[in-house]
């Protein structure tokens, strides 16, 4: 039985229970790594190494076009980033049955509060306010950092754009997550 959920698996579960079972119980998904995925992984890796304080000038050479990346990198400074590629694991429960939320923050920035960074290669998704990633990330960050002063920042790397979503209502987040998980818990 599955008791650990990510933002992505919750998205699938919310959309279609059968699809969720296919993908996460039977693992009926096909491995796909297209050029876009590879590029996304490269950006993530480069930024991660950069935020860790490593010299990325040689690694960067693998990118065809480094200009915009250089521009982008200027917008972030390692100093206040406390975490990069940071996995999280949160325990919660639904009708006394435990469940876990898991995921990986691309980076965490700390000032008065916390900013969870999420790098997007091209575009920032629409409706980020209501996006399950936003909900899961903010909900879990509030638990991890023990504060409601958290926000999530989606950054479109190639466009040098970003959008923030502030933490709002913990009860709403939990309710939304519980509701989705109950679709599966009710049948197992």
């Amino acid at each position, binding site marked *: 039985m599955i008791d650990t959920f990510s933002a992505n698996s919750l998205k699938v579960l919310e959309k279609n229970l059968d699809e969720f079972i296919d993908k996460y119980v039977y*693992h*009926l998904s*096909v491995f*796909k790594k297209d050029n876009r995925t590879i590029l996304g992984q490269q950006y993530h890796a480069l930024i991660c190494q950069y935020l860790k304080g490593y010299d990325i000038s*040689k*690694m960067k050479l*693998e990118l065809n076009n480094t200009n915009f990346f250089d521009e982008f990198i200027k917008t972030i400074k390692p100093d206040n980033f406390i975490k990069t590629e940071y*996995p999280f694991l949160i*325990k919660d429960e639904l009708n006394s049955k435990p469940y876990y939320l898991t995921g990986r923050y691309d980076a965490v920035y700390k000032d008065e509060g916390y900013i969870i960074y999420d790098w997007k290669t091209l575009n920032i998704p629409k409706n980020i306010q209501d996006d399950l990633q936003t909900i899961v990330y903010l909900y879990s960050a509030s*638990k991890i950092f023990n504060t409601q002063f958290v926000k999530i920042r989606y950054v479109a790397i190639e466009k040098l754009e970003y959008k923030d979503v502030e933490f709002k209502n913990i009860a709403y987040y939990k309710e939304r997550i519980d509701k989705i998980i109950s679709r599966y818990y009710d049948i197992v």
Partner: protein
Amino acid sequence: MIVNANSNTNRTEILEKEYLKLIRLGVNPENILVLVQNSLKKRKFVDCIKKNSPAGNIGNLKIYSFYGLIYNYILENWAIIENSIKDDRAKIIPNLSGLEISQYIFKECIKEVDFSGYNSKTSLLHQLFRRISLINLNDLSNAEVENRSAILGESFSLQAYEAINKYKKKTIDYRAFDYIRQINLFQFLYKKLENNFQYVFLDDGDEITPALLAYLEYIKPTVKEFYIGYDLLGSSRLGYLGAINIDFEKLLNEKAIKVEKNNQKTINAQKILENVKNDKPIELENISIKTFLKRDEMVENLIQDIKKLINEGIKAKDIAIITPNSDEFLKNTLLKSGFDFNFLTKNEKLNQNKLIGYLLELLKIINDTNNLDISPYILKGIFIELLKFEKVKTIQLIQEYKLERDFKNINLFDFIKDKADFKILFELYQKIRFEKLSVQLYEMIDTFALISRDIKNDIIKINQLLKQITDFEEVLPEVSNSDLIIQLENTIISENPLSDDEIDENSIVVSSAQKIIDYSYKTKYQFLLDVTNENWLKQDIGPLYNAWVMQKKWSKNSFELEDNIEFTKDRTARLLYKLYLLGDNITLYSSVYDSLGIENFSGIDKYFKSNVIIENKISKPIIPRPDQQAVLNYKGGLMSVSATAGSGKTTIMLLLVDKLLSGEIIKGIEPKNIFVLTFMESAARNFKERIKIRFPNLTELPNISTIHGLALRIIKENNNYSKLGLDYDFEIVDEIKRANILAEITSKFSVSSDKVDLYDKAISTYKNEIALYTDYITDNRLFLNVYQGYQEKLKEENLIDYDDLLLFSLKLLRENKDILEYYQNLAQIIIEDEAQDSSFVQQSLIKLLSGKYKNVIRCGDINQAITSTFTNSDVRGFREFIKNSTNVVMDRCQRCATGVLDCANATVRIANKNQIEAFSSLVMKPVENINIVDKNAVTINIFDEEKEENNSIISDIQEILKNDKQATIAILLRNNFQINKWDKLLNQSLIKTYKNSDNLINNPLYRIVLLILEFIINPYDIKLTKEIASELYEMGYYKYDTLQYANKLDKPIFLADNFDEPLYWDLPYFLFKNHYCMYDLVSEIGNIYFSNSPEKINIALIAAMVQKIRNQTKTFEDTVIKLRQIQYKTNFSNIKFFTHDNNQEKNSKVQIMTLHKSKGDEFDYVFIPELTKENLCFTPFDYKLKESSKFNQRVRRDKKTDEELKLEIIEENYRLIYVGITRAKKKLYLSSAQNYKYYSKMKKYEPSEILGELL
């Protein structure tokens, strides 16, 4: 904290509790490193932490397997490595790929290194992989490797060093590192980085490698506390898996907490450990042993046991089947039982999976611009299985395509583009033909909606394939799609330590012992299979790796056989100790033969004793005759037994072994100390079966084998093959391969193709010569060139031939004192049957093996030496032995009627009179009141015409059968080709026959398999369908109605519509059911029509043989053609079918066979017709020598003259007729005609001289 406890305790729980304690004290999980054995154990540890954590943030858990730690470490800190590489390339993310890419890279490197002279090129890659793996796991420096090379006296260490260096360099160029190579990067990194782990937990500490130990030692000064769980007696992964025994108390300067459950299980486990180490068998209440002759019997019995347990309410998860031989036979048989089994992954070729096979084939077609030689069978599979096209339409389309392709050379896609039902494939082809392979594959999966719950077990494989393709494309973008497909087909997917097996609770696990231990998989019932098989003792040594000497702790200056034995025993003891702790009830299953009919030896059975006494079913004791009794009076030393035909030699040998086993002759002798050598495999099997019946409680039988069986054991046991430069997976070359090699080599030296057979035989002769005269080299230059080319090719492909088997074992014994001593200590007595047929090499082996105890009994009859013209047998050796040993004569023949005895003795006198030294002076005598007294038992006829001879024999047989329905009758012939004539003749007279020849086609199983395979490729051939129906009718499988239905068929069976006819269901079933793997297809055909033993195991033999041929031929169709071509081969790939003792097939049938084949058999009535001078000549002057006989002489050191050769053949002819005569119990009929049909004309023939002389 150090916890010394075994897996029967709560050791892991203690560690988990300590971990949670730290968390409660406020330690950040990021500062606690937990190292467990594998991903499955990681998951369990994580689950425990999750379960016991309060709600809220659990934190960033650092729980890893060693390889998981390395993998993450490299990815997190890759910049350090990239920046340290001085080149102008760059990689943002390294490719931390599987071994498949490494294999490709390593192959390229090997090409650049001069390994000339190295034996097995095919295994070189494997050798080097093992070598680098051992170097890295054991954390060996270059100096340490050099030191070990010197200890082992390695000849190719420099080349290995060079190849490994090149490989290392190339992996850096490509930034592609498999998990073994990643160890090097990890070592580089952790020395550059600060350690963040204040607390380190390590479970299964006894199984860690020196590489991990080095890391732990490095971070030790910065770690506040270690928590180690280990089993001081553990370390089952010693050897090639690289575990090291560590004294953690000394390492951490801390006393271990000993958690001991002093229950019986722990005590017993420790007893097992001790007993195995001291070579003492153990008897325990919860261990039972079941022994079988054939593997199918063993597996069937296992299934019955499982059925019983499940019926009693035992759950699948409470049962584990543990075997090192989880092969196709086992899988197929278990799956047929209806239970669910979970075969934990093993290294395998990707295309062993049917779906993957078809996907790769379709990719091949798409990427081949010509695609004109597509196998229609494969195409059918792709269309029906993969693309789900309608079955009948597919068959019709393929038939049309075959015809058009033959005439117009039309491309498949051009052919289907206008066909509405198949258009989707054409459109897909158009869309993806120029894409890279990963895209093509992804699109195929998508277009044909392949992913569904029905194939959930295949998804992992599909993803493995996609992942592998993507990896290749990333690392080696220059490789073309077509080349990549070839690479993928040949790649063996190795186990990746980062992925683990899913264990499904509703399935019975089938696994290796090591995996059960690694997963600490506890069950109520453990079934240990194949316990007599040597694969239980892992292969740790090859020409370029030695897992024992390459251990970090190795300190000796030499490596002896004894070391290997001791280390292997130590590791086995630890393995069995750990395994025992995980099971409540343990049943050991063994079979004398494996799935291929090859004898098992050297397993773990010797460490256990059965507590169940099986009653001996033999009630009637055999009372020996006085001349037989002399054999049983044997007290030791050299003894020869000259036993005439029908003297009861086999029975007396059996009694002798009985007596030996009871300890009456040699005190304290054990079955393993008794060696019995037979000439034929069937005799060895028969002997074993009889011993098994007489001693049902013996778990270990005496060593009863042919000389080839013994030689194979000597080469394989204790990794001795490595001393010959062979890798563990060397194979014996089969006939097709040998013929191909010879054809290739001879054509290189412009030898005409009709002479190839001469070389084939001469190579065997020559090998025997060089064994006999070690410094002899033939002066026949051309032959020598061919011989050397042939040997070179065998070496390159890690193959040996049957002569090598004997030569190599002899070489091992001659050149290695320790190996010789090992077998001399074992062989307290050697008994040889058919000693007159023993070759020089065989006699040398016996002499060497008996060197210590000098107890040798050689049984034979010089008068029956009939193999010297086609084998290397050397009757002189036996003659000499008789002179130099105590000779017991068994001259009483209780088989033949007195008249037959007189005839046999007369033959001896005639030879003597003609001054042909064919026989010994032994005169056969009858046994009073036993032999039939009949002075007229022999009839000799010389007919004018062939027809008269035929009619006379037929009417005699009819008369015999009228009076005695149970009579056994045989027709014995000089040549194989005569068999069919007599078979036809008798059948025309409605006399049932049994062709007793080893021809493959004579085996009904082979016939049915071949016919159905032919039907699959020719479904439109109605004649073939009728033939199948007739064959199955003959076998009693179909009723007469079905045969009639088939005979009336006017269209292909798959287009017929008679639903009531079994034929309608049977054949289309095979036509539409597509097996990518021929092994599976043949197994299925066999299992449908044959359900008893020994056919079940014979199915496995045929399936393996067909698969082997499939691997050597281009297409399915070629394989089927080849199977038809070899139908008259008597023995292919040394496949020896198992036979019924009371073969139903033979009952009430006239048996037809060659004189040679009849040896060892007996019949009430024997006919030996067609005794012309041409068939059996007794005058040297009249005999025409064959070219092969002359050619063979040219490679001998002491060449015989033509006259000498002729004389030898004539001597053997005398013995041959003698053998034929002495087969008859009641009546013997010798005959010839003076005119036989030769093609369409009658030709005069002279009757053989012997007839006249005997008359």
